[in-house]
């Protein structure tokens, strides 16, 4: 047997790539069972009020329709914390688009048609759906997303800011945004007595399993959730969503398997989204650009059915030296669909504001924005006072500047013409915290040299399956081809979700531990595996408690060059360079995809992405890919991701930090800062579209 010493870190193609491109990889809605029925949900047509009557007679006239479930005939569910999941339980409507009925039929077409024929009468109440800085319902939440305190104060911000030599004060706003993974939320559900099996598209099947068990009043052991391939989630599949509850409910009622795939144009209302933010940032600094006072105050909204608060001020607790600081959130409840996680919740919108404000400070001080960031790079985390386990922001900034050719840049804004185009470049920092959750894993060795790894990880398209096999191969000192990995099922050892960029570290630690111990066992038995094979399982519940004495984050720096057409005010990206310090990179190929995928999503946020809340109806106006714009290939001419070698022993045995989210953090600010450099116009409201810049070109 040859030993491959460098499996970890190598550019390995996804193990399932062939299955995916040839269509043999099965997604949740593709588990065909002979007698499966199809379900199509009915969305509420008002934003707040009560259902006064539901007429399903017309929908039931088609013999293909098996049942139409409403709050009047649906089985009772047990309460769970997420109130968007107690579906069809009451006549109350908390937001437009909330699912209020479900048509189940022998064909997708019949179900869809029946859903359209359900007649609902309402008593509509006045709805309140628009966030404003002075919304009367604003309150200060104790906790924000991630269970962080809503407000933190250090020193005396007001006094120090008032007397600072340099002061900046600006408001930045980000619109609502939608995750829109390529694969819509989907599930196939079937019951066998009191045992439920669901094939579901999610980011972590264990939470889905427990939530379903609670809702249907059965033991978690009776619920099996299979999520072998998932076509993206970006946070919107982090927990159970309405589709899987409805599919399971319908399957229970009809006694047959039921499939439900959420239609794309329903998604903006039922699977979460990034809440809009209004962020005021005030910085007091010396003429040397050193920050003495920093306030980051966030106004945002949540729904009547959830408690999610976008933690946009979090980055200001981590990024820069600020002896006097205030980071605070205010939130109001609106009659809107429930906001939730979207790739780098908190950090992503928060860093747009903070990194724009830092650029503004650099201009006011007349200091290069790379240099200004380096001057304010702290030794310990400003909020917690903990030392960083590793922090290479300065190195990322310097390496990025070198690769991008930043030193040749003339800082004066609005001066570089190429014909009718204005050219500019901008920089911003990236940051995402390290999250590691307890996980279990199991590995078995066979006498023929093959290894079987089992862990309920979820591969949402990131390459998790592949990198876990690499971790196993490395720990076993076995060739990758001898490592077989099973993920994506609650039949496997329990593992946490793919979220918070925690997956690889969490699952990988358990896989690593199991494999190292197995290798020890094999070595102990003279290097051979007995006929019955050898099995080892690991549980990292105790292991993950280590390292808490450090502040642990990945950092990065992004450099953007844009062109702005002075006739039409169209902004187009020319190139984008990211340099990241994220511990050890475990698979160069899939890591690069993660980074540039995040950066591309950040570019979309900067220039085109955003949903419009329709005040009359209380829903988001853009509900398809023709109207909800994300970057297409033509928008991304040159994008590069690099990383610096970072050795950090305080993380996990692989020495890795999560990389799923950091790529989107900071991109929008880098682009907006480049727009300022190109045009002299400081845009503080995203996205930056022709109508944003046009008034400045008159």
């Amino acid at each position, binding site marked *: 047997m040859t030993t491959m010493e460098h499996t970890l870190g190598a550019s390995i193609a996804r193990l399932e790539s062939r299955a995916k491109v040839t269509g043999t990889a099965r997604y949740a809605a593709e588990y065909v069972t002979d007698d499966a029925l199809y379900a199509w949900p009915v969305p509420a047509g008002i934003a707040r009020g009560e259902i006064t009557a539901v007429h399903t007679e017309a929908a039931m006239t088609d013999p293909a329709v098996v049942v139409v479930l409403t709050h009047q005939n649906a089985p009772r569910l047990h309460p769970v914390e997420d109130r968007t999941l107690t579906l069809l339980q009451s006549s109350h409507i908390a937001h437009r688009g909330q699912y209020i009925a479900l048509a189940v039929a022998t064909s997708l*077409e019949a179900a869809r048609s029946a859903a359209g024929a359900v007649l609902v009468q309402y008593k509509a109440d006045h709805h309140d759906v628009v966030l404003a800085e002075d919304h009367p319902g604003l309150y200060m939440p104790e906790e924000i997303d991630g269970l962080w305190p809503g407000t933190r104060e250090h020193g005396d911000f007001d006094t120090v800011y008032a007397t600072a030599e340099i002061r900046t004060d600006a408001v930045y706003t980000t619109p609502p945004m939608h995750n829109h993974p390529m694969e819509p939320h989907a599930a196939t559900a079937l019951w066998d007595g009191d045992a439920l099996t669901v094939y579901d598209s999610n980011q972590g099947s264990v939470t889905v399993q427990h939530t379903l068990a609670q809702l249907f009043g059965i033991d978690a052991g009776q619920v099996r959730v299979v999520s072998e391939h998932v076509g993206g989630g970006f946070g919107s599949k982090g927990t159970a969503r309405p589709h899987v509850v409805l599919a399971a409910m319908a399957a229970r009622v009809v006694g047959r398997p039921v499939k439900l795939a959420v239609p794309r144009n329903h998604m903006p209302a039922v699977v979460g989204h990034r809440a809009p933010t209004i962020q005021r940032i005030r910085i007091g600094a010396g003429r040397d650009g050193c920050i003495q006072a920093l306030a980051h105050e966030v106004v945002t909204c949540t729904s009547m059915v959830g408690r999610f608060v976008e933690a946009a001020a979090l980055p200001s607790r981590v990024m820069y030296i600020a002896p006097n600081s205030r980071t605070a959130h205010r939130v109001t409840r609106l009659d809107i669909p429930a906001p939730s996680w979207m790739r780098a919740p908190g950090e992503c919108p928060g860093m747009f504001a903070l990194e724009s404000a830092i650029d503004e400070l650099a201009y006011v001080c007349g200091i290069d924005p790379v240099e200004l960031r380096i001057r304010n790079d702290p030794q310990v985390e400003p909020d917690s006072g903990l030392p960083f386990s590793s922090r290479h922001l300065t190195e990322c900034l310097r390496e990025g500047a070198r690769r991008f050719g930043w030193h040749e840049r003339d800082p004066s804004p609005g001066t570089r013409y190429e014909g009718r185009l204005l050219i500019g470049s901008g920089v911003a920092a990236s940051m995402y915290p390290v999250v590691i959750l307890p996980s279990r894993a199991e590995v078995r060795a066979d006498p023929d040299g093959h290894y079987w790894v089992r862990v309920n990880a979820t591969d949402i398209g990131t390459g998790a399956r592949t990198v876990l096999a690499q971790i196993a191969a490395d720990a076993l000192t076995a060739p990758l081809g001898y490592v077989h990995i099973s993920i994506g099922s609650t039949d496997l050892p329990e593992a946490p979700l793919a979220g918070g960029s925690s997956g690889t570290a969490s699952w990988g630690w358990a896989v690593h531990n199991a494999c190292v111990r197995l290798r020890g066992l094999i070595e102990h038995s003279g290097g051979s595996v007995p006929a019955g094979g050898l099995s080892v399982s690991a549980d990292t519940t105790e292991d993950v408690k280590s390292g808490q004495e450090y502040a642990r984050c990945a950092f990065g720096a992004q450099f953007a060059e844009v062109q702005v057409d002075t*006739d039409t005010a169209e902004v*187009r990206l020319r190139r984008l360079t990211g340099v990241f310090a994220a511990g050890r990179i475990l698979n160069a190929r899939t890591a690069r995809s993660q980074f540039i995928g995040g950066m591309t999503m950040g570019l979309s946020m900067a220039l085109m992405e955003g949903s419009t809340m329709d005040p009359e109806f209380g829903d988001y*106006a853009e509900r398809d890919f023709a109207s909800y714009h994300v970057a297409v290939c*033509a*928008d991304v001419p040159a994008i590069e991701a690099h990383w610096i070698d970072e050795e950090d022993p305080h993380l996990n045995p692989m020495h890795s930090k999560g990389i799923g989210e950091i790529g989107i953090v900071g991109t929008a600010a880098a682009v907006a800062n480049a727009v300022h450099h190109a045009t002299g116009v400081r845009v503080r409201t995203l996205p930056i579209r022709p*109508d944003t810049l*046009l008034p400045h070109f008159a």
Partner: protein
Amino acid sequence: MKTFRYERPADPAAAVTLVAGTPGARYLAGGTNLVDLMKLGVETPELLVDVSRLPFGEVEETDTGGLRIGAAVRGSRLAAHLLVRERYPALSQALLSGASAQLRNAATIGGNLLQRTRCLYFQDVSKPCNKRRPGSGCPAREGAHRDLAVLGASEHCIATNTSDLAVALAALDATVHLTGPAGVRSLPLTDLYRLPGDEPERDTVLRHGELITSVELPPPPHSARSRAPLMVYRKVRDRASYAFALVSVAAVLDVRDAAVHEVRLAFGGLAARPWRAREAEQALQGRPATEEAFVEAVRTELSACRPLRENGYKLALAERLAVAVLADLAGQG
């Protein structure tokens, strides 16, 4: 989606008879818009008559040196056609600026001209829309209308026509040939479309059963100095590809002795039809080809704009775009 019948008649006369005899019938060509609308419940035809294989698939030079384009020609094929690229480059540019490669491979010229508005309310059957359900109201006026019309709209409808092709054809003085229950007829392309008025449900002047068979272009204009026709299509959009025009311009300009000898100008994204800027053209005829003259002429044309809360930017954008395009063409002459 409502159940429908599907027919593929062998010849145009049979197709016309089928549609004319069925009130709820629709012609089907590439289906890239109609099928989407059927899925959304916006269109609920009882009969689809497939005309994509009728003998309208040719691109031919006419006796006068113009071009006749069959209605069933696919967008990608026309964009790549040598005669189009040589003589009518603006037409090729317009086609290539629309949709995606996949859609252009499927969508036909006739279907492109008859695509429906992408107004978000028109496409959402849970909301009122005068175009979809006459008399139900127009929430776009107060709602999401950043993409919608600033010219020729009515209190009943502010939808825009989203065809790039139609804008180029309007500037190129194209004629549309039709066949129908009452025989054949021809119309200038600019007369094919209607403004909404109090009948926003009618996009065009087509009568039920009428079918576009071809589009004819007169010979291309030639500038005094060069054989290459001076024309361009330029589109402003929110991303580099696969987005409808915020505003677009198709322009043909022939400058002789520093004066405007011939000019044709059309806007997209401003109205329910491609907006041929006749007033601007008249104002420029014989005038010095200067930026000042272009600005003045375009402002005259756009003085009829009636912007709403979110779409006022289109006025400035259309002016800047048109002036830039004309100045650019004048510079090339």
